[in-house]
């Protein structure tokens, strides 16, 4: 069973996400019927699934949710913004409940009650504040007789009955004639409601098996003939066959289970089952004539009944004239219709068969789509993928070694071998690319959560914000995707809180009262660039400088904008006057910066007063691969991450200055940078003559430095391997990698290497 639970959990979270997405995109003034239907279907599927699996708390919430949605999609009510809010809140509650069922903390019971109330009130509509007479425009209040048979065990516990009645009271005015008790499980009541039969059955389907419910227009009222009279002419035709009579009796089971309760259970397998069971159903009916009619249909097992009936729904109705005809004419005992369970089908069929068919057809399609959607992806443990990536990395190295060895062969004698090796190298490269792409996920995974964040925040801040996303399909490593979400959320909150102004300020500045927040992702030369842009007021240079002075940071008015913006990244820096619960505590930007640098990325800010701010995040494509420049020092190869490299050049002796005797500085384009000879730092026999080596200018956390190396070897994409797994952390190194020739090269941790270099300089000076 647990695997079905898992499927339910997954499907439900998909439905919830889908619902939220649709809600956010819904145009409140002119909602598209299609969207409303889609939202309804999502809610409905959750209801069906949770009912099947016995998660009654979720069923309860979805039930009221669905009730309101149903009235919206039938255009009985107009959509209002507070409804969307209520739907979103209900979605949150459902998500909390779902998490609870998955072993999370219990969902807030007060919240559940509140949302149910809210939805019920909204569903009742302002037009009908008094529950007993819900008669909104477009729907006629009808009086129906309801007869339900409670199974003895349910009838025995008053609670179930009370629940049932309470549920019923929400949707209809009740006049109870016989309350079920242990002795007699029959409930007879007269309902006044505007809901259609299908909706009522749907509503009741939570509590009772559909076979046990009978609904019919009240017999002793004029307008109650409503359903009956439609059928009346046809009813004159006598039943041709006892078997058909039986067949009709099953009809009510068809309408509801197919629609409300069971279709979820049938799930993706429904279409094939339908054809099969269609036959089965007919087989059953042919055997049926001898069966006693009235109780018989109640004894059809819930599992068998709906399946057979689903088959009918799909198989039979499309060719309705032949099969539907006799059924419609058949009710053998019209006089019993008002009370006998299962007697209403005659009316039901004539009610709106066309619509019913259309609906089943549509559901069928939806299911097919969902089924094929879930079949096109598989869930795999990340370790398996990583193992695959490692193995392919090995293969690439082996292939490189083979190619190197083969390079020495006679091209004519070894023609075939060389061709094979050539092919191997191409295939290996393709293989590596495909394998790496497994870990890649589209940015939409991250972006998709922001419309909700923006919506909620904008509401809280009384701002009008439109969110746009660009380049959602840009792919990024899964590990990065997970870690970029929090920094991005910070930036988005900042933009909303400090960037975009209130509508009146915007109007005063001659701007559209509605601010725009843009999230954009793109590839730029082996890196992924994520931008958060707003068209707000921009950063206030004077304020930042003033705050920086207050905090005792070394600033002056001559600083470039770029340097001023960098101050924002100082720990605890905030220019907000008021600390709100949204932002302003000044814990944001330095954390953002640290997180992004931890991922091997960079953050930059651009701002222009009055026009907005743009934050640019540059990230490597993946955490497992690094773009590096390989440098040779004393016979060893080191990898310098390319993101840290500013430039490399050949130094001349004149550029080298000494400070306090021994610490060397290099003069590059007006800047004095510490000159760090890596060979010295790592105790290697490197080149001594400065003119024979090269200088790589790197930028670390604490500024720039010039690293002196013997030679530049090239630029590679290297696979990062851990040194700590079998050894320990090596000072000045962030990891290791395996080069094309199979040798290990260490990856320089630039910031740490600079610190080491400066420390060794000091030591030498002290000696």
């Amino acid at each position, binding site marked *: 069973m647990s695997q079905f639970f898992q499927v339910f959990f997954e499907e439900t979270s998909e439905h919830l996400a889908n619902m939220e997405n649709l809600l956010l995109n819904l145009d409140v003034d002119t909602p598209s019927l299609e969207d409303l239907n889609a939202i309804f279907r999502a809610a409905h599927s959750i209801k069906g699934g949770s009912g099947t699996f016995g998660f009654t708390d979720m069923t309860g919430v979805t039930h009221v949710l669905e009730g309101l949605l149903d009235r919206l999609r039938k255009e009985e009510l107009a959509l209002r913004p507070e409804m969307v809010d209520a739907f979103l809140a209900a979605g949150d509650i459902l998500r909390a409940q779902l998490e609870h069922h998955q072993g999370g903390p219990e969902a807030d019971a007060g919240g559940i009650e509140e949302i149910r109330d809210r939805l019920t009130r909204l569903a009742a509509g302002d037009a009908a504040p008094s529950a007993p007479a819900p008669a909104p425009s477009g729907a006629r209040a009808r009086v129906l007789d309801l007869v339900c048979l409670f199974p003895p065990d349910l009838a025995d516990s008053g609670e179930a009955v009370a629940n049932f009645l309470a549920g019923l009271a929400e949707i209809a005015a009740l006049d109870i004639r016989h309350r079920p008790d242990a002795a007699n499980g029959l409930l007879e009541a007269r309902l006044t409601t505007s809901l259609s039969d299908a909706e009522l059955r749907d509503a009741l389907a939570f509590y009772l098996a559909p076979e046990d419910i009978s609904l019919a227009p009240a017999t002793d009222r004029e307008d109650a003939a409503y359903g009956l009279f439609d059928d009346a002419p046809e009813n004159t035709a006598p039943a041709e066959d006892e078997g058909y009579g039986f067949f009709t009796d099953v009809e009510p089971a068809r309408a509801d289970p197919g629609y409300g309760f069971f279709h979820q259970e049938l799930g993706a397998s429904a279409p094939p089952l339908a054809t099969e069971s269609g036959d089965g159903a007919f087989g059953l009916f042919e055997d049926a004539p001898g069966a006693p009619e009235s109780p018989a249909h109640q004894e059809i097992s819930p599992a068998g009944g709906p399946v057979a009936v689903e088959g009918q729904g799909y198989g039979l109705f499309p060719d309705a004239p032949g099969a539907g005809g006799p059924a419609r004419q058949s009710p053998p005992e019209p006089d019993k219709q008002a009370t006998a369970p299962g007697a209403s089908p005659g009316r039901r069929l004539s009610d709106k068969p066309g619509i019913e068919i259309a609906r089943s057809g549509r559901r069928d399609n939806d299911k097919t789509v969902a089924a094929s959607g879930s079949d096109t992806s598989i869930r795999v443990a990340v370790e398996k993928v990583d193992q695959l990536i*490692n*193995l392919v*990395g*090995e293969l690439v*190295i082996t292939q490189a070694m083979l190619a190197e060895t083969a390079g020495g062969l006679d091209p004519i004698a070894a023609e075939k071998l060389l061709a094979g090796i050539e092919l191997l190298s191409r295939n290996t490269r393709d293989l590596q690319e495909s394998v790496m792409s497994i870990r890649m996920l589209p940015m939409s995974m991250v972006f998709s959560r922001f419309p909700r964040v923006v919506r909620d925040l904008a509401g809280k801040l009384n701002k009008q914000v439109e969110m746009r996303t660009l380049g959602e399909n840009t792919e990024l490593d899964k590990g990065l995707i997970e870690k970029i979400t929090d920094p991005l959320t910070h930036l988005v909150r900042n933009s909303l809180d400090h960037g975009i102004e209130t509508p009146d300020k915007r109007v005063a500045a001659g701007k559209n009262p509605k601010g725009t927040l843009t999230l954009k992702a793109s590839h730029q030369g082996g890196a992924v660039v994520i931008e958060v842009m707003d068209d707000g007021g921009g950063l206030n240079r004077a304020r930042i400088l003033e705050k920086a002075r207050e905090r005792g940071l070394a600033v002056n008015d001559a600083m470039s904008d770029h340097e001023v913006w960098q101050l924002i990244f100082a720990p605890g820096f905030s220019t907000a006057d008021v600390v709100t619960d949204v932002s302003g505590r000044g814990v944001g930007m330095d954390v953002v910066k640290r997180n992004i640098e931890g991922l091997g990325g960079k953050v930059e800010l651009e701002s222009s007063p009055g026009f907005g701010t743009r934050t640019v995040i540059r990230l490597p494509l993946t955490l497992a691969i690094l773009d590096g420049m390989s440098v040779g020092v004393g016979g*060893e*190869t080191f990898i310098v991450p390319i993101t840290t490299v500013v430039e490399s050049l050949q130094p001349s002796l004149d550029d080298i200055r000494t400070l306090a005797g021994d610490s060397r500085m290099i003069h590059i384009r007006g800047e004095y940078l510490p000159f760090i000879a890596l060979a010295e*730092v*790592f*105790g*290697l026999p490197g080149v001594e003559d400065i003119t024979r080596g090269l200088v790589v200018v790197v930028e670390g956390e604490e500024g720039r430095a010039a690293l002196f190396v013997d030679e530049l070897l090239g630029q590679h994409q290297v696979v990062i*391997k*851990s*040194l*700590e*797994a*079998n*050894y*320990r*952390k*090596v*000072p*000045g*190194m962030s990891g*290791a990698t*395996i080069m094309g020739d*199979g*040798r*290990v*090269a*260490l990856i320089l941790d630039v910031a740490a290497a600079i610190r080491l270099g400066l420390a060794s300089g000091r030591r030498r000076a002290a000696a």
Partner: protein
Amino acid sequence: MDIVDGAPTSGEYLTFTLGAEEYGIDILKVQEIRGYEAVTRIANAPAFIKGVINLRGVIVPIVDLRIKFNLGEPSYDQFTVVIILNIGKRVMGIVVDGVSDVIQLNADSLHPAPEFGSILDTRYLLGLGTVEERMIIMVDIERLMTSQEMALVETTAA
């Protein structure tokens, strides 16, 4: 001294030579034996840590026990052997002069090593074994390789 707790009562040992001495280690800790190949040096590491190699995609540190135990001038040629060990979840290699044998020894035939104040602390010795008149120094390789003085494993004290 006491026999180290957890010492096997009987088992197979791989013996190898370092200079003129013969050592034995628990064979279950040995993953494979391979020739010496060029290593990548690690800056500022103790001299006996030769560096790291690429063992089928895994970065493995290599320790030269000859340097560690101060047994003559280490030379590296085609006969130099690296024993790859599996210790805990870690993989590491030791450079030795040669692998000689696999022997069976009972705990009873182990003699406690005398305290000499030698470079090889008796803490890391299981005892001395005798096989065909040869003396074999039985090393608790796991304890040795994870010790602080080998500096192979990060210690919390650091």
